[in-house]
């Protein structure tokens, strides 16, 4: 089991990098840009086999940041390619991320029904 402080450190550092990107680059970096950047970078690093060691070291510190979501997509895809071949390249990612995506959509919809934006 990953100790808590490792997850705290790993997650903290990944968020700190995001903050530096926001503050040091020219303006107009929105949360959308950050999220797209993290999921893509995570997925690429995962494909190169560089993300798994990070997950082994800091656990949720690497899986909870959105780069971990990219890692999840790629690992799902790679597992599916091993079992199903070409078809797996198209089905594996969504299969692995199904729970997260569905949760986000359903909870998003429910929250929209229950709550109004506040002042």
């Amino acid at each position, binding site marked *: 089991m990953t100790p808590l402080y490792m997850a705290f450190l790993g997650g903290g550092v990944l968020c700190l990098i995001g903050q530096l990107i*926001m503050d040091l680059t020219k*303006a*107009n970096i*929105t*949360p959308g840009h950050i999220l797209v950047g993290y999921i893509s970078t995570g997925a690429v690093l995962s494909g190169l086999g560089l993300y798994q060691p990070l997950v082994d070291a800091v656990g949720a510190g690497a899986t909870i940041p959105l780069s971990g979501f990219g890692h999840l997509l790629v690992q799902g895809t790679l597992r599916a390619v091993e079992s199903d071949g070409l078809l797996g390249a198209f089905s594996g990612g969504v299969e692995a991320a199904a729970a997260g995506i569905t949760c986000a959509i359903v909870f998003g919809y429910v929250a929209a029904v229950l709550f109004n*934006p*506040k*002042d």
Partner: protein
Amino acid sequence: MPAYKKRGSQTVVFEDTPVITSWASIVGPKEGQGPWGGDFDQVLADYMFGEKTWEKAEKKMLQEAINLALNKRDLQVDDAELILAGDLLNQTVSANYAARELARPFLGLYGACSTMAETLLVGAMLVDGKFFNRLISATCSHHYAASRQYRFPTEQGTQPTPSTQWTATAAGAVVLEWAGVGPRVTSATIGQVVDLGQTDVADMGSAMAPAAAHTLKTHFEDLQRLPDYYDLIVTGDLARVGMAIAEQLFIRDGLVPRPNYSDCGVLLYDEKQDVDAGGCGCGCAAAMLCGPLLKKMLAGEINKLLLVATGALMSPTMSFQGESIPGIAHAVAIEN
């Protein structure tokens, strides 16, 4: 006898100076808590104003401000021969829908946050030109309605930068007449669009400051006046960052910004109010004019006022397409 009321390149002087006979302002809760809270006619308890959406609340604020300005002079809506209004939202919906309720002849104008000066100067021309005896110039903005259109959904966790401005929830309306008692609109400078390549959508002040400087410089050149002619020169909504830049530009242009220069975006809120650089939005200049500033003119504390309402003609679509943010500023001189 062509265009004998025009001076220099961009300025007009009025002959039968139109009179601001009445005015009214309605502001949101945050503006009410600011340093001028007591000078507005109505401070809303919440941002909904009894409506179901922020856009509808904004429309109601404009409509009520117009009614209030007329009622102060015991006039009814039907006494207004024309309504000139605009706002920040797409298709200027607040103005259009308020005009639907008021059912008077209506011209919608868009000048982003410069709209108060734009409606005022067009109105003054129409009155001085003897086309109308009595008309309304008005504008409004609503923080959350603007926020969701120009920025992010309200509940999204985003971090403001030090140059971010807070769109004012406010509406202001003036009644312009060819005769009556009140401060008079004496001259106006129509601004040109100035764009010095600013692209930061979280910094409207820097985008608008060159337009403000250009309009002011032109105003003083066209009328061969010095800045100390006015008791107060006030820009629309440059806020702290834009105002600091504008002051540098004034000095470059040989104008003296102190001590009679200020900015509505800086004035409207207290520094502790968590508004970052300050206020913005059509309602910012409108509420400051139709609240504290005209009140001070009535009391004789200010006798010569130059309102330079500034607008960032920003469009999210054009920003995504890589365009920079054009700015505009119109100046209106109001004298007792």
